[in-house]
């Protein structure tokens, strides 16, 4: 997988840009890659399950595979912060300046999840975040978002911002990346997926266009039995 460009030695002699058959830039689904421990996943399921809970509108973040999505992303270049400038000095910056933490995302998750569970154990009689009542869980999330919770060795506010962003991404990503299982996120909002041709429905006079969502790797409608 990954980008494979034709090397000049194989470039066709016919004029024009080099082109070689069967060469494709394929998406990196990171299947089988893991970063999180079982305890971390347990905590993350509880956190994302409060951000997008299962309710009358459908399954929530844990059921949609958001933790799987985040786990794979943290194992890859995103988790390592490969594409970011990660050298000192580290200052808080202003909101428009983006990610300022000295910890790459994977390490930020590791520290924040550990500190959060440690905080909960100390504050709630030895219970982990995942073992708290939903009201207490929501209150902690509110404090993290507002910057009112202080966690050991990590900014709870920064972590919340990243967690919220990644939860949304995992809920609405293409299913090949591990989240949005069975396209529940897309079905919730009526997004028809990775389509790029609506010419047949241009004259629909404002009527809803109901198309089965489709991912990059297809959907149940592609199955040949």
């Amino acid at each position, binding site marked *: 997988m990954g980008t494979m460009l034709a090397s*000049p*030695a*194989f*470039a*066709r*002699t*016919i*004029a*024009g*840009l080099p*082109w070689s*058959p*069967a*060469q*494709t830039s*394929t998406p990196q689904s990171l299947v089988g890659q893991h970063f999180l421990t079982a305890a971390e996943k347990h905590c993350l399921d509880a956190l994302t399950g409060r951000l997008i809970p299962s309710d009358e509108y459908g399954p929530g973040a844990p059921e949609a595979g958001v933790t799987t999505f985040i786990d794979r992303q943290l194992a890859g270049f995103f988790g390592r912060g490969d594409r970011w400038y990660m050298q000192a000095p580290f200052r808080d910056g202003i909101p428009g300046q983006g990610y300022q933490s000295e910890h790459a995302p994977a390490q930020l998750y590791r520290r924040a999840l550990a500190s959060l569970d440690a905080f909960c154990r100390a504050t709630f009689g030895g219970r982990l975040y995942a073992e708290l009542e939903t009201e207490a869980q929501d209150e902690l999330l509110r404090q993290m978002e507002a910057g009112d919770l202080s966690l050991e060795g990590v900014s709870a506010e920064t972590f919340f911002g990243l967690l919220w962003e990644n939860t949304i991404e995992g809920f609405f990503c293409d299913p090949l990346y591990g989240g949005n299982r069975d396209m529940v996120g897309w079905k919730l909002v009526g997004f028809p997926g*990775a*389509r*790029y*041709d609506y*010419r*047949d429905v241009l004259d629909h006079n404002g009527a809803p266009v109901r198309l089965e969502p*489709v991912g*990059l*790797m*297809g*959907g149940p*409608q*592609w*199955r*040949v*039995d």
Partner: protein
Amino acid sequence: MRGFGITSVILAAATVAASPATLAQDTSFAQLERGRYGVITGNCQACHTARGEEPFAGARPMETPFGVIYTPNITFERETGLGQWTREDFWQAMHNGRSRDGSQLYPAFPYPHFTRMPREEVDAIYDYLSTLPQVKKEKPENDLPFPLNIRLAVKGWNMLFFDPGPFEPDPGKSEAWNRGAYLVHGPGHCAGCHSEKNLLGADKESGDLRGGRLEHWSAPNIRGGENGGLADWSHEDIVEFLQTGRNRHSAAFSSMAEVIAYSTQHMCEKDLQAIALYLKSLDDEPRDQPDAPDEAVMTAGQSIYADNCSACHTSDGSGVPRFFAPLAGSGKVRNPDATTVIRVILEGARSVPTNARPTPLSMPAFGWKLDDSQIAAVATYIRNSWDNASGAISAGDVEALRQQLAE
């Protein structure tokens, strides 16, 4: 090659000075121009050039069902090219498939077609080749299994299949028709791809142009009369295709891309008209109607088509003529041999850039995202939708081709 002028003439003069008088080239402008045009009609450059390397210096691997054959250097370099060949040597090769040392050439070299060319034409080609920049380049050893690695075996082949002799015009037909037939069956060697081969690699029924298979491509039927593969193409469609690489029905890629890039786009329109006239005169038998494919496969195929293909080829298969090839009515899609259709879905394809249409449009590969049964379903769908009725493709067909291409 278009700008044949002073430089080439000087080069020609220099070559003559350096060569033994016995070679006896005629380097008049008219003669070289005739030879240059002959080289274009024969598409010599495509096969006698290794990818990205010096033109006409050979060493390009040709995959045949029997093994790999490398093309020789046809520049006039003395050691590795034709530098020591006489006109007579060259005529023997072109007309009888015999090499300078008397050995038989493999019929991957299309001498069974070039034999239709008259002596004067072959001499002109010889003269023209003698003026090309000389390149020293050894030909790699052929990779052929026994007994085919014995050139003597070709003698037997010749006795069975080779019918030497220049083209004989049909006096009952027009001059243009005869010119077209000569170009198609002589230098153009269209039957090399567009006719079925027998088990020994010879054209069946002396090149009937009903389609064939070569290097894991299936070339379509190009008979243009009633029931022929090009029945829906007009004369103008054929000329446009050969001249620009595209027309309202199709776009050229793979082997045909080379034919158009090096050969037909440089041919004069009168010759292309002649080819069109000839092809349009070839009727064919009506084709058997194959069984209708399985409904469930067609339904899955339709979904796969809608989500992957329709953005360019449109849901009714009409495409965007000259940009995205129409699939409805396409000779490549309807070909009973589906190799090309499956291969294009697996690997993608690029339309040939030509002088007239320099922008090459590419279709991406789908082999990484569709499995064998899905490719079979979508291929079955396009072969049996709209007015197409060409039979089903099985996942096994796709799997087999995938394996062959991986080798």
